[in-house]
């Protein structure tokens, strides 16, 4: 590694067009990352508007109508513009070819097309905001969504378009994982993040088309009154819910599986110990992806389902807990007798374990029919899915960003600030959402702009901590970007955490434009910390 290492994917080739028309998976990943973070902040801002409105009862800041728009846009932006496309799109794109030793994904041009399709869909979502918003909730339930005068069509059209980007990314990843691995990199030698992306991609290509067709039916219902979802025309609005959740429950796993993958990478590296139960984790990913298709009915316990369906869906829902529990215990056992170092990525991974476990267990509560009928559409549900989506996915995403930041950009952030911000995220998150479990148990319904006096204390508490949470996330992300400006470069050959996967051992930081200067030869498994001497630059 001589002066050749100066050439990397960030500085070569140069020029704005070389970025906009790039076929390099790493650059496409970066474009997903920046747009994703942009939408994350936009969605977060909307969340803060809601929290400040809810700091006290009554309509203090915004009207009921505006509130309806704000929570709809918050949900739709966070799910369809940030979590679903941007996490596999960003970290998946940057890392997948590196992890399998390939020069690129299987179809680089399709990959760039995915990004632009996503951007095009996002334009419709932005148009929705400028044109006065949409007020149906991110689920677009009929019959209200066929009657609402807000921008249902632009928003659903945007989601329809983004769906294609999701499908194409999924296809690309599956083909890459199957066909682009270097010789000797067998399935059981793949990093678990790759297994996670595999599960995610499978769900993306099989569930997303159903969402696409659902959005088409919804738009046709509005344009042509086709009657499929309209009881006045002999149709059934509940069928919409079936269609919607047939996609959107598996979509929950599109959102959480990459997070599981990130945690499976962070914990062994920062515990300096081989992952415990590799095959258990790998197969639990696939079983979650599969079981995820059979449980959509648990979103509809109060939608006039037969008792028999309720029991069946409830029973299958409990099954999700098994592979998920397998993962949690495997991660804990990985840390057992390891050399755990409290680096920022590890802080996030530990936060994840704590928060996701709460999110997962409360999911089991909600899977029980009797409890769900009591808790349905209350803040308990809001708290549950935020513990999973934010406490799980976004915390893991932040952990992943901190873990692979020096690899992706060749710079190291201030680790002290990163740790403080991670702590702020953890405390702020619990402060915001734990009270919401209590609010839900006491009967506070979701999607209301105001509330009874009895809820004041918990709501104001939640609002206060949401401010801390927002500031902490902002500091965490700014600290990352600050490392560019400060140019706190790491040695291109360095491996700051001592990772054993190919992206750490066989390429420079930031990586070469073609990933590897020469094709990597596999010498060890992804977690064989005992077999290989850790990079000399590991302990600074």
């Amino acid at each position, binding site marked *: 590694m001589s002066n050749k290492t100066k050439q990397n994917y960030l500085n070569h080739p140069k020029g704005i067009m070389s970025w906009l028309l790039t076929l390099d998976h790493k650059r496409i990943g970066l474009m997903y990352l920046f747009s994703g973070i942009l939408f994350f902040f936009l969605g977060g801002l909307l969340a803060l508007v809601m929290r400040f409105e809810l700091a006290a009862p009554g309509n203090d800041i915004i009207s009921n109508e505006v509130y309806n728009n704000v929570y709809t846009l918050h949900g739709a932006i966070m799910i369809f513009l940030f979590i679903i496309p941007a996490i596999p799109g960003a970290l998946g794109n940057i890392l997948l070819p590196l992890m399998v030793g390939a*020069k690129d994904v299987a179809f680089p041009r399709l990959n760039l097309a995915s990004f632009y399709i996503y951007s095009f869909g996002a334009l419709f979502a932005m148009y929705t905001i400028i044109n006065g918003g949409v007020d149906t909730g991110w689920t677009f339930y009929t019959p209200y969504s066929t009657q609402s005068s807000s921008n249902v069509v632009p928003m659903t059209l945007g989601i329809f378009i983004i769906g294609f980007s999701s499908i194409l990314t999924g*296809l690309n990843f599956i083909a890459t994982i199957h*066909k*682009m691995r270097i010789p000797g990199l067998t399935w059981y030698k793949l990093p678990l993040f790759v297994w996670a992306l595999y599960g995610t991609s499978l769900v993306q290509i099989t569930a997303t088309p159903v969402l696409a*067709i659902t959005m088409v039916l919804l738009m046709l219902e509005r344009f042509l009154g*086709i*009657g499929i979802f309209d009881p006045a025309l002999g149709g*059934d609005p509940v069928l919409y819910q079936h269609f919607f959740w047939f996609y959107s429950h598996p979509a929950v796993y599109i959102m959480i599986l990459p997070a599981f993958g990130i945690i499976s990478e962070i914990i062994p590296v920062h515990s300096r110990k081989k992952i415990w139960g590799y095959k258990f984790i790998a197969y639990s990913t696939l079983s979650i992806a599969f079981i995820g298709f059979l449980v959509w009915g648990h979103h509809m316990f109060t939608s006039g389902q037969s008792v028999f369906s309720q029991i069946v869906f409830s029973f299958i829902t409990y099954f999700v807990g098994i592979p998920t529990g397998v993962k949690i215990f495997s991660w804990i056992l990985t840390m057992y007798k390891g050399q755990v170092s409290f680096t920022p990525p590890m802080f996030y991974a530990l936060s994840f374990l704590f928060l996701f476990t709460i999110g997962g267990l409360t999911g089991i509560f909600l899977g029980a029919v009797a409890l769900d009928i009591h808790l349905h559409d209350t803040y308990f549900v809001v708290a549950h899915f935020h513990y999973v989506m934010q406490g799980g996915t976004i915390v893991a995403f932040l952990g992943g960003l901190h873990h692979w930041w020096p690899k992706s950009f060749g710079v190291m952030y201030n680790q002290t600030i990163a740790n403080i911000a991670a702590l702020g995220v953890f405390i702020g998150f619990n402060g915001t959402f734990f009270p919401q479990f209590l609010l839900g148990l006491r009967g506070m319904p979701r999607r209301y702009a105001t509330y009874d006096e009895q809820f004041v204390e918990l709501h104001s508490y939640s609002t206060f901590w949401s401010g801390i949470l927002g500031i902490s996330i902002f500091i965490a992300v700014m600290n990352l970007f600050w490392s560019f400006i400060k140019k706190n470069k790491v040695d291109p050959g360095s491996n700051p955490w001592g990772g054993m996967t190919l992206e750490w051992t066989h390429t420079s930081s930031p990586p070469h434009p073609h990933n590897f200067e020469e094709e990597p030869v596999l010498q060890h498994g992804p977690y064989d910390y005992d077999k290989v001497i850790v990079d000399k630059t590991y302990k600074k």
Partner: protein
Amino acid sequence: MGHHNPDSPSHLKHYFHDVNQQYETSKFAMWAFILTEVLTFAGLFVAYIVYRSWYPDMFVDAHKLLDVNKGLMNTIVLITSSLTMALAIWAIQKNNKKLSVVMLVATFIFALVFLGIKYLEYSHKFEVGQLPGEFYSYMGPDAVHLNNPHIFFSIYFIMTGLHGLHVAIGMGLIAWLIYSTQKGNLTPEYYTPMEMIGIFWHLVDLIWIYLFPLFYLIG
């Protein structure tokens, strides 16, 4: 840039090891895409099943308003086009460029005939008002007793419409194949696009094979 083997063919992308890996990757992804397509239509088949079980008598009576002969003709046309598509691939494998182009043109024409017949069917339905949802206005003696026939026509138009869209997209792809084959870009060594579009075309055919009995041959 890269380390091109001097004797590696021009169609080999630099990020693949060899031609075989590139071909296998395309084929694998195409089948994954076919899975996506099947799931897309599956949603609509579910809608069909739900409403047929809700309104079994209406479905049986409403299907009599469709033109079985035209449907049958289209079935034959599309199956034949699948054959010509397969023959085009066979011809290029045998290095018979001319026959391959002829077969592709035949496939294109069959697709056009299919859409032509579909157009005749659709325009007749537009004339008499056998239309989806609110636009349904047909009051003929064979339909007055029907319970919500517009649901049948909603599903009919959405499913055959989406299928027709696939036929149209397929025609665009086949037109491009005709051009590339004629230009000599596809050879016995490299005909991956033709095989991929062939797989797609067979799927389009296969979906129609299900649509035809489900709409035209009920009861």
